C-alpha cells in the first residue's frame, strides 16, 4: 500500500505540474472563515505555511514572500467532500471499457480494492476540484449479472478517501455493502438472504475451525483476511440501504457482529432516527432524494437531513448515484437541505467535518484548525448558494490551478462566439 501511495504521489505531479509553484506561505486576509471546528465562524485571516494551516485569527502578520489574498466579502471553508463517487475509476458512464468500479466475477470478494484503478488524470478530477471539492470516497459498485454474465455480490469491495490532488489515502478505507430491494438481484432474489450471506462470510472469518474442508465457502483466503482487518480495525462498513425496516436490521446486525456501520442512501432514515442516534450510526444521504423511486423509498423527504440532525444523528452528504462527473453539485444539495430546515453550519459540517470523521481522516482534513492540511476553498459568497463560485482552491496548501478541460473548451469557444463564428 505504501508503494501504491508513492506511485500515486508521483502521478500527482502531472495534473498540477504546469501550475506555478505555490508560495511557501499564503495569507488569506479579511474573510468570513467557517472553520467547522472549535473556532466556529471567524471574521479574519487564515495563514497557510508549508501546506498546513499555521494560524487563524485577525490581523495575522504575513511572513516574508507570502502570497496575500484579499478575502474581503468572501467566505472560506474547508474543502468540500464530494461523497461516494466513481471519481477516477469511471471516465465515461456507460462505456464498459471506461469504468473500473464494478467487479463481476459472481463471487464474494471483499478484497476487491477499487482504489488500485484510480486515475489521477481523469478529467472529472479537475472539473470537480475547481468547483470546490477537495476530497471524496472512491467506491466500488456491485452490479447484477444478466443472462450468462456473472454480476457482483452484495459486498461490492473496498474503497478509500481520495483527495482531488490525486492522492489515495490508505487511512480512509471502507467496505461497501449493498442491501435492500435494489440488491435483491445480488442475493438470490430476497433481501432476507442478505443477512444469511453476511453471517456466513463472518462465520468463515471468525470461526474457521468450525468449517470442514468440504464445506462450500463464500470467501477466498484473501477475502477472509480483508474482512478480518476491517473488523479488527473498526473500519467502516458502508451499508447502502433505504427502507426503514432494513436500516433497523442493519443496526441490529452491526451491533450483534460488532461492526462499525455507516448507512448510505438512507431515504427513510428519519423514520428510525432514534435507533441510529442510540447506536451512533451515521448516515450518508442525498438531500435531494424526495420521491418514492422504489418501495424502499416511500418515505423519502427533503426534510430527511434536518430531521436526522435534529435527532442527533451524524449526517454527511453524498449523491445516491456514485457518478464521477457532477459531485461539485453537492453544495447545491446542501443548500436545499438548509431550505428545508437544516441549520447552515450543520449543512457545511455534512460536507466537511462529518465525512472526514466517518471515514477516519478527520486528523487531516474537514476542518480549519491549526496543524491540519490546508485543504480549503475561497468562495465568492455563501458556499451553499447556487450563484456562488469557488475562486481559489487549496489542497495540502497547494494552490490548485483554476483550470479544467471544461474551462479550456469554454475559452476556445467563447473566443469564437465573440468573433461571431461559433458555427
Amino acid at each position, binding site marked *: 500500500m505504501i508503494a501504491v501511495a508513492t506511485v500515486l504521489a508521483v502521478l500527482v505531479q502531472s495534473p498540477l505540474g504546469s501550475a506555478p509553484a505555490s508560495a511557501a506561505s499564503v495569507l488569506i486576509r479579511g474573510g468570513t472563515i467557517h472553520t467547522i471546528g472549535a473556532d466556529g465562524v471567524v471574521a479574519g485571516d487564515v495563514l497557510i505555511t508549508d501546506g498546513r494551516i499555521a494560524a487563524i485569527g485577525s490581523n495575522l502578520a504575513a511572513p516574508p514572500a507570502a502570497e496575500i489574498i484579499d478575502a474581503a466579502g468572501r467566505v472560506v471553508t474547508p474543502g468540500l467532500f464530494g461523497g461516494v463517487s466513481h471519481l477516477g475509476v469511471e471516465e465515461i458512464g*456507460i462505456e464498459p471499457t471506461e469504468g473500473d468500479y464494478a467487479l463481476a466475477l459472481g463471487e464474494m470478494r471483499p478484497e476487491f480494492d477499487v482504489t488500485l484503478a484510480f486515475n489521477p488524470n481523469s478529467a472529472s478530477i479537475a472539473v470537480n476540484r475547481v468547483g470546490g471539492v477537495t476530497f471524496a470516497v472512491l467506491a466500488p459498485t456491485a452490479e447484477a449479472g444478466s443472462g450468462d454474465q456473472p454480476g457482483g455480490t452484495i459486498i461490492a469491495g473496498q474503497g478509500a478517501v481520495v483527495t482531488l490532488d490525486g492522492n489515495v489515502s490508505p487511512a480512509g478505507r471502507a467496505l461497501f455493502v449493498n442491501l435492500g430491494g435494489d440488491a435483491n438481484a445480488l442475493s438470490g432474489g430476497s433481501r432476507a438472504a442478505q443477512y444469511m450471506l453476511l453471517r456466513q462470510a463472518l462465520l468463515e472469518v471468525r470461526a474457521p475451525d468450525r468449517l470442514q474442508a468440504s464445506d462450500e465457502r463464500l470467501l477466498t483466503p484473501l477475502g477472509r483476511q480483508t474482512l478480518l482487518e476491517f473488523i479488527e480495525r473498526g473500519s467502516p462498513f458502508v451499508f447502502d440501504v433505504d427502507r*426503514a425496516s432494513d436500516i433497523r436490521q442493519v443496526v441490529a446486525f452491526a451491533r450483534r457482529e460488532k461492526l462499525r456501520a455507516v448507512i448510505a442512501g438512507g431515504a427513510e432514515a428519519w423514520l428510525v432516527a432514534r435507533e441510529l442516534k442510540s447506536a451512533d450510526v451515521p448516515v450518508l444521504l442525498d438531500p435531494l432524494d424526495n420521491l418514492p423511486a422504489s418501495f424502499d423509498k416511500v418515505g423519502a423527504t427533503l426534510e430527511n437531513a434536518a430531521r436526522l440532525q435534529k435527532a442527533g444523528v451524524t449526517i454527511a452528504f453524498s449523491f445516491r448515484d456514485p457518478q464521477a462527473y457532477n459531485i461539485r453539485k453537492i453544495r447545491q444539495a446542501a443548500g436545499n437541505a438548509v431550505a428545508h430546515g437544516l441549520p447552515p453550519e450543520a449543512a457545511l459540517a455534512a460536507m466537511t467535518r462529518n465525512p472526514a470523521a466517518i471515514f477516519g481522516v478527520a486528523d487531516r482534513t474537514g476542518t480549519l484548525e491549526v496543524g491540519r492540511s490546508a485543504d480549503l476553498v475561497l468562495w465568492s459568497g455563501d458556499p451553499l448558494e447556487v450563484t456562488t463560485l469557488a475562486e481559489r482552491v487549496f489542497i495540502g496548501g497547494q494552490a490548485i490551478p483554476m483550470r479544467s478541460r471544461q474551462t479550456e473548451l469554454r475559452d476556445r469557444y467563447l473566443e469564437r462566439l465573440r468573433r461571431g463564428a461559433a458555427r
Partner: protein
Amino acid sequence: MKLLTCLLALACALSACASKPEKPEKSGAPSARAAGAEPYPSTYRVPQRPPVLIRSATVLTGTGARVDAADVLIVDGRISAVGSGLAAPDGAQVIEGQGRWVTPGLIDVHSHLGVYPSPAVQGNDDGNESTDPVTANVWAEHSVWPQDPGFAAALAGGVTTLQILPGSANLIGGRSVVLKNVVSATYQGMKFPGAPQGLKMACGENPKRVYGGKDKFPSTRMGNVAGYRAQWMEAQEYIRDQQEYEKKVADGDEDAEPVKRDARLDTLAAALKGEILVHQHCYRADEMATVLDMADEFGYRVSAFHHAAEAYKIANLLAEHGVCGAMWADWWGFKMEAYDGIEENIAMVDAAPGGCAIVHSDSEEGIQRLNQEAGKAMAHGVNVGFAIAPERAITWITANPAKSLGILEHTGTLEAGKMADVVLWNANPFSVYALADQVYIDGALRYDRAHPPAAPDSDFSLGQAATAGGARP
C-alpha cells in the same frame, strides 16, 4: 366525470357544471368523433376563482423586464395587469408581496413524469417503445400516469406547464404532450388546451446503441440519418398522395381512392407541415448541424435541440436558424456525446444574437428546481463577462420554453391577457433558499406552502405508512 372534476376543483360554478354534456346521448350506437376533430381532447377546465392582487413584489415578467414594488392583478384566470397602485376589484384576494418575488409559472420542455414515474418499477416503465427505431405512431400521453408523485413535487418547485416526451431510444420516438401541472385522474384533465403536440426525435448514441445492440438498424450515426431521411421521404409521398386525392375529389372524381390512413405517417406529415413541433434530442454540435441541413432538405423546422451539450460550439448557427437549445446547467460526462458539456453552455447560447436558451430537466429531481439550475447558469455566464440579470435568466425557464412549445401566446410571461400561471417566491428565485410560496395555474391557487394539503395529491402516496408523520415531498 365532468361533475367529479368540478367537485375536485371545489369551486366550480354551478353554471359551468350544468353546461351541456360533451358525450352523445346514451341511446343509439356510439358514433365516432367527427373526422378532423382532435381525438383524446383536453377536458381541463379553468376553475372560476375570485380575483387575486399580489401587492408590492419584485416582478420578473418573463419579457425581459424587472419591475420592483409592483402589483400583479389576476382576474378570471388571466393576467389583468402588472403595475403599481393597482386597485383590488371587489372580492379580490389581496396578498402582500413585499420582500417576495413573482415570476411566470415555470415551464419544463423536457420531462418524463408520468411515463417514467416514481416508483420506477417495471410495471410503470412506459417511456420508450424501444421495439422499432421509428415509432412515430405512439403518443406519450397514452403512457402518462397522472398519479406520479413527481407532478406534485414539480409543482412545489413552481412548474405549471410541462412537456412529456417519449424516451430517446428511437430515431423517431413519437408524439409528446403538453400538460398543465394540475391534479387529475386522467391525462386528458391535464392537457394544455390548444397546445400543439411535439415530435420526439433522437440523435447519436441512444438509437444506435439500442438497435445496434440487437444487431438491427441503425448501428451508426450515418445509419441514424439514413433512418430519418427514409421516413421524411415516405411522409412527403404520403402528403402528395393525399393532396392528389383531395384534388381528384375537388375535381369531381367519384372513383378517387382515398389514401390508406397510417398513424406513423399522420404524425410525420403533421411535423413536415409544422402542425407538430419537432423536438430533437441531440448532444453534439456536428449532429445538430446535420439535422438543420436535413430540416432544410425536407422543408420543416426544428423547434428545439434537447440536451444540446455542445450547443455553445454553434451558438450563432442555432440563433440564425431560430432554433432553441434546451440544456442542463452542469450535466456532462455520463456518456461520450456529453463529454464536452460546460457550465457556460446556456449563457453562451443566450449570448448569440437572437439566441434562444432553455433550461430543461429530463429529471424528476431537476424539474423541482429549474430556478436553481438557471441560477447556476446565470452565475457562470456572469463570471465570463455576460451581463445576465435575473429578468433575463427567468426567460430560460418561462418565455423561451413556451416559445419552443408553441404556447407563448398563452403563457410564459406576465403580459395582460395571458393565462395567469404565476409563482410567488419567498425570495429571489435564483437563490438556493428560495421556495415557492404560492403557485397559480390559470389564476387558481394550486400550491400553497403555508397550507399544505392534508393528504398527498398522488393516490400512490395516499395512505402509505412510511409517509406518516408529515413527510412532504
